[in-house]
């Protein structure tokens, strides 16, 4: 019954739900706090007739204060040792710079080699590796921007939420080394990244950085939906185009009489131009082109925005340590008041 009662009290106080203790053994030290109150026989100067001296209320209070400080010190220290913490806390952060969502193609076609002029040894680099290199330079720059990443093949996966945790985006990029699979569902990937901005007021530049070989066909309905989403979220689109060996350059227009459906990347490029949002395409053929993309993105600005970021746990033990320190200061002061020698 007693246990049940204790459990109810613990549950009502939100134990394990809102707060917790790291260790439990220091609770065994708590009873030490009664020692100053039960022990008798303090250091004293022998006096033949203590009864003869008048009671001194000030001294009695000082004695009580001293005992309280002693108890407080040990109580605070044992509580501090248990390591109390609050769970699921949020800290307010201020974000400057643009909100950049990277949309990375992870489809099987990204395993194919990337077109490159020059020696043959380098020509066989998979597009995925080129994409990773490009993105690493992007992620390493512009530390004010908030960044996130969506990877997509047949379906999109949120790999890194929008935030200022660059290392996490790097780790998510490293995880793409496993290789691609499935189809290129560009629309779903962009859709998920755009969804990430939904329900948030537009406070400044929002950029979608699409890294893909563009081997995808969008039907009319999807095109309209995506166009509406781009307009609503006011996001600009930067496409870092990884050209396949069989792919075309987007810089020159198609020759007369060519069927546009044979070049899905070209069709995609044409469609993106009709989005009514700022759109730029970069062909990742040389480092300069990539750096141009990185530079363009870093010029984007944003109003400082406040956002809440979850933290794992908020440590409360420092407060307890502080309390113990105050008690120690009190004890030192009282020690200074002690008579070290009998002055008659």
């Amino acid at each position: 019954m007693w246990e049940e009662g204790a459990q109810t009290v613990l549950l009502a106080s939100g134990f394990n739900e809102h707060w917790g203790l790291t260790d439990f053994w220091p609770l065994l030290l708590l009873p030490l706090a009664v020692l100053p109150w039960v022990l008798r026989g303090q250091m004293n100067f022998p006096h033949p007739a203590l009864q003869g001296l008048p009671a001194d209320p000030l001294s009695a209070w000082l004695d009580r204060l001293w005992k309280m400080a002693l108890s407080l010190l040990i109580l605070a220290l044992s509580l501090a040792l248990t390591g109390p913490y609050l769970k699921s806390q949020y800290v307010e952060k201020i974000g400057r710079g643009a909100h950049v969502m990277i949309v990375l193609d992870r489809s099987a076609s990204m395993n194919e080699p990337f077109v490159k002029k020059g020696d043959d040894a380098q020509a066989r680099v998979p597009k995925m590796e080129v994409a990773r290199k490009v993105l690493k330079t992007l992620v390493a720059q512009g530390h004010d921007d908030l960044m996130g990443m969506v990877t997509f093949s047949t379906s999109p996966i949120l790999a890194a939420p929008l935030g200022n945790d660059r290392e996490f985006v790097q780790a998510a990029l490293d995880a793409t080394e496993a290789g691609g699979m499935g189809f290129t569902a560009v629309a779903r990937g962009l859709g998920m990244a755009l969804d990430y901005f939904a329900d948030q007021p537009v406070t400044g530049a929002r950029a979608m950085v699409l890294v893909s070989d563009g081997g995808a066909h969008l039907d009319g309905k999807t095109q309209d939906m995506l166009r509406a989403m781009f307009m609503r979220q006011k996001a600009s689109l930067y496409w870092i185009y990884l050209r396949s060996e069989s792919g075309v350059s987007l810089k020159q227009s198609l020759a007369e009489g060519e069927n546009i459906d044979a070049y899905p990347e070209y069709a995609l490029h044409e469609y993106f131009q009709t989005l009514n949002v700022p759109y730029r395409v970069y062909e990742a053929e040389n480092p300069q082109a990539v750096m141009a993309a990185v530079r363009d993105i870093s010029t984007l600005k944003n109003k400082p925005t406040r956002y809440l970021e979850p933290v794992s746990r908020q440590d409360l033990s420092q407060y307890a340590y502080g309390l113990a320190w105050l008690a120690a200061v009190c004890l030192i002061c009282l020690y200074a008041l002690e008579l070290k020698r009998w002055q008659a």
Partner: protein
Amino acid sequence: MRLRFSEAWRAVVKGLVGGWSGQGSRLYAWRKACLIATFVLLTIILFRPHLMLPNRVYDWYFVVDITQSMNVPDYQVAGKSISRLQIAKQSIRKTLSALPCGSRVALGMFTERNVVNVVEPVEVCAHFAALDQTVASMDWRMAWAADSFIAHGLYNALEQAPELGKQIRVMFFTDGQQAPPANPKYMPGYAGKPGDVQGYLVGMGKPVASKIPKLDEKNAVSGYWEQEEVQRFGNFGMAETLSVLAMEQGQHDRNAGHGPGTDLLNNAHLSALDEQNLQRLANTTGLNYVRLEQSAQSSSWATGLGMTAWRWADTDLRPWLAVPAIVCWLLYLLLTFSGSRWVKWLARRWSGIRLRSH
């Protein structure tokens, strides 16, 4: 008369103090030293000292099954039905906040035959926000295919684990649902040695079969999977019976190679925790099979014995200073109360022990 009295009194006091001071001044010095030591230790603590020290941390690769059978709401929390996927996500998020700083966590998702590594191991405290949000965003819609070959997926995760870190452990959340039903003869074997990678195979759901919901765009239940809709390619590969005699006696496995020749398909549209299968997989891989009943359980598994990885990590030194401070406090207290019967008794015992040991 009065003068004489005061003179005598002074003499008495002098004598007593003198007698006291032989041993007393030493006690006094110790008492002072203890108090000062307590104060100094506590003052250092205020500056939050920390140091890189070998520390007990945990490296985990959490893999979540995101196939549709994980949408079955057969968990009850405070009177509400909650899906297996939700509970799996909740447990990972609880575990994230239970892991000590310096631990590293990688995330992965499973459908079809493989596990996609979403993020490589990152430190759990510095990247808590991102980890937490990534887990929260895990959704059955991220599945790139609808099949669920649990053995393939588990072996795939165990293959990936050594590449993610030497001491990494795997925690695989799944209900063990195999869809479509597979021919047991054509299941892969585990390439590694059992126990190469340690960890837990976490069984989700109830052993009682439930219908698998179909969810619409708003995650509302729009129907349930029916038997007719289940893929019927259960018996791929070679027919089990090749003898003409057996076929004449009514068996026609070869000619019905793509039909539901076995009773495997009878309840394939239902999903229950397949403990038998998971237990078998756990035995072949050397993982521990456990059944998740509450989302909080996984944090104690994750920080359990045998799952520890020792690594240099940023260590909080405050407890290491607080313990000596408590010892100093206790000495100060006992020296102050040196006149007490208890303390005298303790001192006698202590010196007795000391004498005996000499």
